[in-house]
């Protein structure tokens, strides 16, 4: 396989974007990615992969062509991919394999989602139906926060994890998000504020949950030969792990972790020839605070059951021993489903280039962990400068 690098990074403002359409938001991020490297114009890009999770959010069945057309790539190869909340990472994996196989040398991966217009109740339902609608949502009304709440209860019962520890993860990510101009909610919060906030799904409070956000992100991915022409700071994709888990949550073999994270991580570490100890900086999928805590354990940043201790000690702040979600994470930056995986690649690439808002000094190897649904899809990517 050929080596594959990320050379161009583009990121729209994440937030409630009342002033802009899906295609216009995608354009913002694509233009940013083109201007970020020496590719010059869109004419040089051979093909594109579009990540959009929901036609319902897009209010557009077959949503990729409206973007492909708007960014001037009519006539060129394109596919739209979907892997729930990990759609952006599915786009990266697709583009990676096109380049690694030699099919194309320059590929654009763009992810976007416009979510706020659906309203909270409808948005909750769209995301709940990403679970098993025959056996779990339709019969029992278990929403996306509901599934993670059940994982939190099981973890608390087995390991003594507390609501305060979960709140500390939110506090950390909000602190990181303050420095990120593209983040949705740039304000610091306190543990008390989290614990006093509305209980969405016991034991998860409002501030344990990520936001309903509009946004887009884009990266330009190239072969080794092209990388030399286009940038002095290529970021290499060294490992890709992808795994899946049962459609229903009730059929999972454990409720205190996500097995597919464990499997994807092992694939990615093996492919990159590293261990978790080599990772200098990471973005993990914190759609809920419990999701970040489970990721600490399932990615092997700490032992099973020790996730609470890791945040208690403050080790996952950007200046700690294990910097995680230095851009504010999904919690503060926002989680426009299709864009998230690509936004993670943007943050890790910036960290490895030394251009991040909360820079981890001397970071050489980065990890991105992206969950689709409640583990139905997992992607773990390893990046190196």
């Amino acid at each position, binding site marked *: 396989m050929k080596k594959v690098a990320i050379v161009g990074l583009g990121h729209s403002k994440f937030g409630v974007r009342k002033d802009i359409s899906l295609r216009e938001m995608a354009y913002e991020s694509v233009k940013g990615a083109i201007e970020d490297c020496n590719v010059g114009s869109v004419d040089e890009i051979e093909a594109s992969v579009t990540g959009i999770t929901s036609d319902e959010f897009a209010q557009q069945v077959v949503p990729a062509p409206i973007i492909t057309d708007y960014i001037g790539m009519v006539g060129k190869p394109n596919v739209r991919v979907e892997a729930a909340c990990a759609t952006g990472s599915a786009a990266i994996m697709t583009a990676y394999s096109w380049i690694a196989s030699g099919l194309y040398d320059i590929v654009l991966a763009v992810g976007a989602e416009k979510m706020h217009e659906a309203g909270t109740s409808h948005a909750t339902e769209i995301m709940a*139906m990403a679970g098993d609608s025959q056996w779990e949502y*339709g019969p029992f009304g278990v929403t996306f926060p509901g599934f993670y709440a059940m994982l939190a209860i099981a973890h608390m019962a087995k390991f003594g994890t507390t609501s305060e520890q979960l709140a500390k993860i939110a506090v950390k990510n909000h602190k990181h998000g303050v420095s990120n101009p593209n983040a949705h909610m740039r304000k610091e919060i306190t543990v008390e504020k989290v614990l006093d906030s509305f209980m969405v*799904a*016991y034991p998860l409070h409002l501030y344990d949950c990520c936001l309903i956000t509009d946004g887009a992100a884009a990266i330009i991915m190239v072969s080794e030969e092209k990388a030399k022409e286009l940038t002095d700071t290529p970021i290499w994709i060294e490992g890709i792990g992808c795994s899946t888990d049962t459609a229903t949550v009730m059929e999972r073999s454990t409720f205190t972790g996500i097995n597919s994270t464990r499997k994807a991580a092992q694939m990615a570490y093996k492919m990159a020839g590293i261990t978790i100890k080599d990772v200098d900086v990471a973005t993990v999928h914190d759609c809920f605070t419990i999701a970040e805590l489970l990721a600490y354990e399932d990615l092997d940043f700490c032992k099973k059951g020790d996730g609470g201790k890791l945040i208690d000690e403050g080790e996952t702040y950007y200046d700690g021993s294990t910097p995680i979600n230095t851009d504010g994470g999904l919690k503060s930056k926002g989680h426009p489903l299709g864009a998230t995986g690509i936004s993670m690649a943007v943050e890790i690439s910036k960290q490895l280039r030394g251009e991040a808002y909360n820079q981890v000094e001397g970071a050489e190897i980065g990890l991105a962990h992206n969950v689709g649904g409640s583990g139905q899809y997992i992607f773990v990517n390893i990046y190196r400068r």
Partner: protein
Amino acid sequence: MLFGKNPIITQTKVSEFAERLKENKIMGTKCKKCGQIYYPPRWACAKCLTEENEWVELSGEGKLATFTTLNVGGTKFEKDIPYTVGIIELKEDQNIKIMGWISNNIDRENLEVGMDLKAVPKTLEDDKITIELIKV
């Protein structure tokens, strides 16, 4: 007879599941070839890719593995909030898990992982039937 409060997928090879609930039985399926038991029931075995399955009755008795109380629901469940659902692991095989509504007879404050609960069918209006988790 349809399964669930707001049935979404109703055309299925395992529609008999809801009919058996009406007879007060919670049924899984068992692959005749490899013996794998499925709950929720499946028409085909994912291990053998065979359709030679038989219905097996599950005890419904087990321990609470996890639960949550939802104060925000999707559009279909807005009128039901707050509602509490849980998952039990069956006593005969903890790998078989059943989701259900926690009965209103159980005080939410007293819910605890590991407590004994029993899954039982509960008839709803409009020819629908669901599963409730009750105290043993």
